[in-house]
């Protein structure tokens, strides 16, 4: 009996068209959201715009806690809640919208590999710079993260988040690094170099057509370029690749012309 209702539920998910009131939740734009979260949120927004699916962006200070997996952003569509780019791509695919259908198997393998490269190097570096560098953590990340809450709750939550991220960095072997050891910026540089070489002179990573990889890369690079941190080293690394800069500009102009993306 349980399974029968289950199958029905899944079928009804696929059958329902994309509603007009689909919403994307993220933390508060001006005061609270951090670099890595903003990058992820922008990736999902870019992807949905590329699919031509309407989405409203709503800012809530407790977005992280509302999310089913604890990660930003998440979308609320009909009566389903889906978080993070990977599951969102699968969800839209179940509804019949997909950007990577025309790729063959080898290309799809490449696309997934490059997406993992972005997660592995860019996202990890962003998290490291935000939370493991004492200067950045103290001046920017902790104050922003705790801004919606009153003292001492904000402090507790910020330190808890910092502890969690540092634990993760330790687990993957980045624990003892400091920014001065340069390894982090070198990793960002290598990642951008790989992306730049893969992109070449094409408009998108898979020539004429935008895919989820383009959305992901745009989200991260644009956020790095437009976010003010304690030092501009991160942005400088990205700026040295001109085809990546024009890629970001092109996507912004094509898919985001109606929206003010720059965050103060």
């Amino acid at each position, binding site marked *: 009996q349980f399974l029968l209702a289950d199958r*029905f539920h899944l079928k009804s998910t696929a059958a329902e068209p994309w509603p007009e009131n689909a919403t994307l939740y993220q933390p508060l734009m001006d005061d609270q959201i951090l670099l890595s979260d903003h990058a992820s949120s922008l990736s999902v927004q870019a992807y949905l715009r590329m699919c031509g699916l309407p989405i409203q962006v709503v800012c809530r200070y407790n977005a992280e806690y509302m999310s089913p*997996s604890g990660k930003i952003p998440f979308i609320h569509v009909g009566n389903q809640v889906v978080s993070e780019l990977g599951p969102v791509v*699968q969800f839209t695919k179940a509804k019949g919208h997909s950007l990577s259908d025309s790729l063959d*198997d080898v290309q*799809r393998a490449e696309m997934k590999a490059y997406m993992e490269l972005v997660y592995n190097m860019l996202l990890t570096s962003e998290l490291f710079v935000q939370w493991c560098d004492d200067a950045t953590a103290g001046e920017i990340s902790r104050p922003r993260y705790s801004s919606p809450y009153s003292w001492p709750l904000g402090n507790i939550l910020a330190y808890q988040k910092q502890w969690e991220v540092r634990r993760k960095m330790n687990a*993957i072997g980045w624990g003892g690094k400091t920014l001065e050891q340069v390894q982090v910026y070198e990793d960002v540089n290598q990642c951008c*170099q790989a992306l730049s070489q893969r992109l070449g002179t094409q408009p998108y990573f898979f020539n004429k057509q935008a895919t989820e990889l383009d959305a992901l890369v745009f989200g991260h690079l644009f956020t790095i370029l437009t976010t003010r941190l304690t030092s501009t080293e991160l942005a400088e690394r990205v700026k040295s690749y001109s085809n990546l800069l024009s890629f970001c500009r092109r996507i912004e102009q094509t898919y985001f012309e109606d929206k003010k993306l720059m965050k103060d």
Partner: protein
Amino acid sequence: MAAAMELRCWGGDWGLPSVHTDSLVVLAYAKFSGAKLSVSPVDWTWKTLTASVPELVCGDTVVQEPTQILNFLRKQRFNADYELTARQGADTMAYIALLEEKLRPALLHTFWVDAENYSNLTRPWFASRSPFPLNFFIPSRLANVALTRILVTRGEGLLHRISEVEGKIYSDAKECLNLLSYRLGTADYFFDNSPTSLDAFAFGFLAPLHKADLASSPLQSHLRQLDNLTRFCDNILAAHFSPDKPRKIAARSGLLPPVQETMDANLQKLTQLVNKESNLIEKMDDNLRSSPQHKPHRTEPKPSLSSSKNSTPA
């Protein structure tokens, strides 16, 4: 030439020069690039506790971690990637990231967290290779490290429980194996006809899974179905690690060249299997997360009993 280089790593078994993934990566790369390394296994020494494995010692410099060691070797002019184009170099980085993110958690789980494999294979092996009294706590320490790594990188939220992420990491790993298989195709190596660092990494990840005598492993059986990957491992072992003179790869005529169509059919079948699995996992996740307020609008099919009751004449 540079001073003699010494590599400290775990010893070998099951037909492999080393059973440890990272050590295998370095050993394979050294063979591919022609670097002469003197291998000193840390088995039965106190280095099992103190050293981070693998470790390259060259004169005064000590380098750890496979990526760093490979960089160091490249700087010493042992470069197996010399002939790659810039684009292929970028692809290398991407595929290595794919292996690290998708395959490593499942490998760690198979060897260190899965109860049967751990107690039957991994712990006895590592305990027998550690000196007394370290053999009592080295394996469990490594197992803890593995479990923490899986939970911290793949766990969601503060309630880290291994059972919740198990399904997901295995389906990700199977998908990763499928993608590797697609990329390799019928070639001997990933790029052209000479092995590169990507081949070293792939070999390091795949060979232990292929050769170990695991009691229960869905991942291993999945790998065994991907002929081109198992052939890839065997080729490298035969060509670079066999005790007698390395045979040329061209003498492949002994093996039946795989027919492209059957391979594609196999891959299609496996891809469908992986997709079905991930759908199942999603359904389970959805059920766990569906909020009580938002009951899906189910038009319950009226049980046939009542309809038959209605149809019976009063």
